[in-house]
């Protein structure tokens, strides 16, 4: 005896098949329209953990890339700042070379010192550069400007150009801890890079050298003393070290002081400014390399994730048209078979 099929069984079977095919069709349509094959953990439980990890990696790499970009911006600003300082020092050297010429009178030198003091102001303002609300040479104490003016440091001259009386000094280590500390930015999961240099390492010697030059050209003694060798000129300085020269007797002393100052400027330029420039260059290079490594990593991560998670459009579309054909055939045969009834023949 052949298998008996009841009428409701036939209809239920037909509905079930249509429902099944429609479901599959809907699933493939979703995969195509979203471009994602694995959207729920249960779609591929074995690899869902991997997908989460890969997503986290690319999210982290994005963050790293953002920070690398910001670090490069910051280093670029520092490079400009240090380059400008270099120009300022070169101008100071030119003026000093002229002033050291014995044919100039003390009055002319004093006039030339005005420009030197202006150059010092420029250096100080470069050292106190602010970017994104912080002093970029402030170390970790970057809410506080590194160089402050001390107007009572030199008692002489009592009148005349106030800039000649000013002395610029670093904050004391007690009130501003951290001014000599460096800050690091994380540029990958394992690497960090230094993004600042404390003002002491870049500007302190240069500003002092220019200040000495200015004072000497303005006609004041400059044999300032740092008795405890803490890198900060003693305040107050021992009496007599800042007194005015008496001309013409002290002319040679003044010329010698100008030459000393030129040497100090050369030294500061060489050991601070140029070193800093090459360090910035090296770090910018490293950031460029890291950036390209990160970009490759991101690309590879995305490829890996995509190969697990994303829809293969060609495969999905051919699957879709297959299912479409199946459904059409199913509906056509269903309606044809259901129209076959003994009722029509009796």
């Amino acid at each position, binding site marked *: 005896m052949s298998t008996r099929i009841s009428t409701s069984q036939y209809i239920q079977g037909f509905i079930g098949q249509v429902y099944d095919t429609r479901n599959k069709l809907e699933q493939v349509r979703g995969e195509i329209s979203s471009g994602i094959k694995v959207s729920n953990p249960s*779609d591929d439980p074995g690899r869902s953990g991997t997908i989460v990890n890969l997503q986290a990696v690319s999210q982290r790499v994005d*963050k790293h890339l953002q920070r690398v970009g910001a670090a490069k911006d910051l280093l670029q600003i520092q490079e400009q700042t240090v380059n400008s300082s270099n120009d300022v020092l070169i101008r100071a050297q030119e003026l000093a070379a002229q002033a050291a010429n014995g044919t100039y009178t003390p009055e002319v030198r004093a006039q030339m010192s005005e420009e030197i003091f202006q150059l010092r102001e420029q250096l100080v303002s470069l050292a106190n550069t602010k970017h994104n609300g912080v002093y970029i040479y402030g170390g970790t104490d970057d809410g506080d400007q590194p160089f402050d003016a001390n107007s009572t440091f030199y008692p002489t001259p009592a009148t005349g150009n106030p800039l000649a009386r000013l002395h610029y000094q670093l904050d004391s280590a007690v009130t501003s801890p951290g001014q000599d500390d460096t800050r690091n930015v*994380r540029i990958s999961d394992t690497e960090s890079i230094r993004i600042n240099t404390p003002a002491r390492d870049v500007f302190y010697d240069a500003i002092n050298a220019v200040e000495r030059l200015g004072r000497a050209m303005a006609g004041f003694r400059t044999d300032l003393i740092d008795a405890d060798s803490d890198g900060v000129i003693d305040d107050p300085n021992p009496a007599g070290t800042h007194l005015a020269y008496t001309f013409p007797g002290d002319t040679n002393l003044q010329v010698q002081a100008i030459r000393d100052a030129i040497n100090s400027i050369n030294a500061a330029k060489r050991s601070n400014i140029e070193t800093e420039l090459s360090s910035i260059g090296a770090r910018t290079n490293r950031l460029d390399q890291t950036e390209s490594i990160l970009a490759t990593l991101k690309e590879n991560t995305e490829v890996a994730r995509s190969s697990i998670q994303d829809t293969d459009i060609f495969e999905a579309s051919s699957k879709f048209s297959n299912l479409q054909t199946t459904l059409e055939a199913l509906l056509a045969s269903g309606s044809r078979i259901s129209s076959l009834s003994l009722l029509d023949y009796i």
Partner: protein
Amino acid sequence: MGITGLLDTARRALNTQSVGIRVIGDNIANVNTAGYTRRRAEIVSQITSGNGDLQVGGGSEIKKVIRIVDKFLNQDYVSKLGDKTKAQTSSEFLKRAESSFQLDGQAGKIGYELTEFFGSLEDLASNPGDIPLRTQVIQKGTNLAATINSTYNNLATLQREADDRIKIIVDDVNRITKSIAEVNAQLAQSERDNQEALTLRDQRDELLRSLGEKISFRTVDDSDGRTTVYLQNGFALVSGVNNYELSTTPSPSFAPSGGYPQGLDGKSLSHIVYDFGAGSQSDLTNSIRIGGGELAGLLEIRGVQAITDTTSFDTSGALVETAARVEHIARDLLTRFNLTYLGPDETPGGTYQPSSFGLNGTQPIPFGLFSFNGANSGNNFGDSDSDGRPENSDLNTIATSGIATNFASRLIFNVTNERSLASAIDLDPASASTTFAVGDSTILNNILAQRSTDITYSGLGNLTVTSSIEGMYSLAVSNIGGQSARSQDSLKIFTDRETQTRELQQSYSGVNLDEEFANLIKFQRAFEASSKLIKIGDELTSQIIQLLR
């Protein structure tokens, strides 16, 4: 025996064929009736009459109308139906549960928010004094806490929904068993003379099928046609004309002295019991879970508590397993990350003296970075033993004191003021003075170092696993994904089996219109022929009468 006998035979035949047609009519009319089993008129030949050597039959008659039904096939179908509804219930719940763990890599998933939070700390570490960056940390931290809350709450809500549905289904089961008992009673009255009460039996089979969707059971029919329904463990739901009602209770008589632990949402879960009265209840929960049906699926998902359970996370069940992983993440943030946030201890051996500072010089409290709702209700802002350290033991004390059973749903980001977010460390820990640099990012870097550190997570349920905090989330995703995929696979398998059995059952008991039409023709022709018989009998009789004239 004579011509009148022929007329009698013809009359009976007409009767037989017309009843046959009526039965077919009934079949055709019920082709779409759920639970209807096709009937067949059982025709027997009439006893022979006559004497001597010659025996002529008296035609046919309908002995009874029978249901074409295979009892074992029916029972098999009911149990397959139960397997299917169980798998259906689990997979429906797990699909909803995994919606919080979708792989779209978008906001609102714990994994994404963890990475964002740590990313914002990395950003801040490069410029710790920056207020906008601090605002970002607070925002990302708050998002992370809120996402952990909602992910956990989603699981807890599903568990509660399963528990609520268990109560409803138990009511359903009671209603159905009551109806079966009533049908049993009616059957006893209406089945006489070997004739089955067809519709009542169909009705009872249909009731048994609906019962099979809810719970798995076995049946035995007694000689009076009454069905006894009993559970796998032998407990009778219907016996003769009586039914025994199940009930649900959060505090059964067999509960341990401290009571059962709470569900994921901190409220009690119910147990399915039979109440013998006088405070004695029998626990049916576990034996129902092992079987099939919606009730078993719900119990599987919601979890069943054992007498040895001490926390919400000891309960079995897929939702609890995943929730335990989320809770681990929350507790890790509350203990390890909070401890790192405090900075190294400045007075080792005594009460923990934090060494970290915010921009405004404030120092964090033990649960300073992450805290939880209810932390200040009489437990020293979470630090219940007042030793200044955020520890798991503090959380356990709070959990057992009943203030909170879970921390994932109560987690909050505890920094609201940008300037109070601690990032710097005391520069001279030995002296009593506090010196710190605004741009110091030691604390942030310490926290970031913990991010990639593997630790061993244990103590919640049976789970013991060594991983990083972000790895823990991946594990939670694989866990829920695996559970959900398994339940979808079993749904597929059990649906196929159910379909197969239903087709077999339908193929045996269902109505086929073509077949009925064919039979209709058969009976119609037989009816026509029988009428012919009467006509012939009539003609014969009239010929004889004419002969007598």
